[in-house]
């Protein structure tokens, strides 16, 4: 083979690789059938409120430090620091320009379940669609209806503070290829309705694993580490192991866990702290049967000692 042919060969290979890369990293919205199925549902705002608290929307999308009623104003602004940069929760109030008031339920479903924006771009997984993707059509429709009832805010969303190369959103297609799945994180007895509900809440809307599961260098969950605890991405300190194999809560009964989620108190009446304060305030708004289901699921996990506790 002469040099020119080799050059052409390399050129063709490079173009092929680039094309393949572009195809593989292309944002993939939901299939048309699923979008139609969701759009056909009539959202129930009252039922959607449960999903709003279970999903912890206000923790990132209400103004920083907002309390009580102010947590229903989703003006954005909370800063989430990470190894990849600082993500700033955007305005998702029903304001037509500043928020998501102009979105269809299909846009909302694509964001929540596929991590794809109405413009067709990838969202950063700081928005926990890696968990929300397990949500049911009914719950997506209900949550959309509830969020439409919230107050409008005209506060402009701020751009994320993310440096090269993580500012190239297309690369998130590669992250999705490697890590984005709607498969169950844990196998639980599917005949036990309480465990199934707990699994749904923890693995889906509750997105507990997003902080409580260790991640690798490129932000994917370490395999076999589900809910086994992790260093705190926001700085010093730790995020506890939730499995019966860690020292954090292995001695807690299911009712201890449920009471902690309800009241913020540990069995020896220490209190909730750190970012879990917001989470617990959200969990306190659920039905007690939902907190019991979460507790039952956590107690059913296999013990996963993490080696550093």
């Amino acid at each position: 083979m002469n040099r020119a042919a080799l050059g052409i060969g390399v050129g063709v290979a490079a173009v092929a690789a680039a094309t393949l890369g572009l195809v593989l990293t292309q944002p993939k919205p939901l299939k048309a059938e699923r979008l139609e199925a969701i759009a056909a549902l009539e959202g129930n705002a009252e039922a959607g409120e449960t999903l709003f608290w279970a999903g912890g929307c206000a923790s990132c999308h209400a103004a920083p430090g907002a309390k009580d009623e102010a947590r229903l104003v989703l003006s954005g602004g909370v800063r989430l620091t990470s190894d990849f940069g600082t993500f700033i929760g955007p305005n998702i109030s029903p304001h037509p320009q500043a928020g998501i008031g102009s979105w269809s339920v299909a846009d909302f479903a694509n964001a929540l379940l596929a991590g794809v924006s109405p413009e067709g771009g990838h969202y950063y997984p700081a928005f926990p669609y890696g968990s929300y993707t397990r949500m049911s059509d009914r719950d997506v429709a209900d949550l959309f209806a509830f969020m439409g009832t919230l107050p409008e805010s005209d506060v402009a969303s701020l751009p994320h503070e993310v440096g090269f190369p993580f500012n190239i959103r297309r690369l998130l297609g590669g992250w999705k290829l490697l890590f984005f799945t709607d498969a169950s994180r844990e196998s639980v007895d599917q005949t036990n309705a309480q465990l199934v509900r707990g699994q749904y809440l923890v693995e889906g809307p509750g997105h507990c694993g997003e902080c409580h599961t260790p991640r690798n260098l490129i932000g994917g969950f370490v395999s076999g580490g589900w809910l086994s605890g992790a260093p705190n991405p926001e700085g010093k300190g730790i995020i506890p192991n939730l499995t019966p194999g860690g020292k954090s809560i292995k001695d807690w009964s299911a009712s201890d866990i449920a009471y902690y989620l309800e009241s913020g108190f540990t069995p020896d009446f220490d209190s909730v702290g750190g970012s879990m304060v917001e989470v617990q305030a959200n969990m306190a708004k659920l039905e007690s049967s939902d907190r019991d289901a979460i507790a039952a699921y956590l107690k059913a996990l296999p013990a996963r000692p993490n080696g550093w506790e």
Partner: protein
Amino acid sequence: MNFKTLFAAALIGSAAFSPAIAADEPQVVRQEMMKKNGGAVGAMAKMVKGEAEFNADAVLAALTSISEVAGSFGEYFPEGSETGFETEAAPAIWSDRAGFDAALAKYKTDADAALAAAPADLDALKAVFGPLTKNCGACHETYRLKKS
């Protein structure tokens, strides 16, 4: 000196010094104060949960203890006590002292109000228990760092 003697000396040394020193350290004092708070809150929480009979005297004792802790807790965070003795005090206590002091002041105000209310029945206890214990999480959200 052989190894055995050295070991014995070390044991005696640690027995003679460490506990006496540790008990006076602000890190240890404040940890004990929070444990005391946990006991007081627990006594009342059991009544609120219906696991224990309402007892007005026990409630008053618990609220007195909580109010006392609130009164002096802030004195045990001097410069130099940022680390050591497995402290879970967050750096924010020293970088945002005004915020920490304000959180403590609110806790003291709520504790004194609960004590002054002197709950005479379970409903009266419930009315003060919620607002008072909101202070725990509110302060721990920013000023405590879980390390283990």
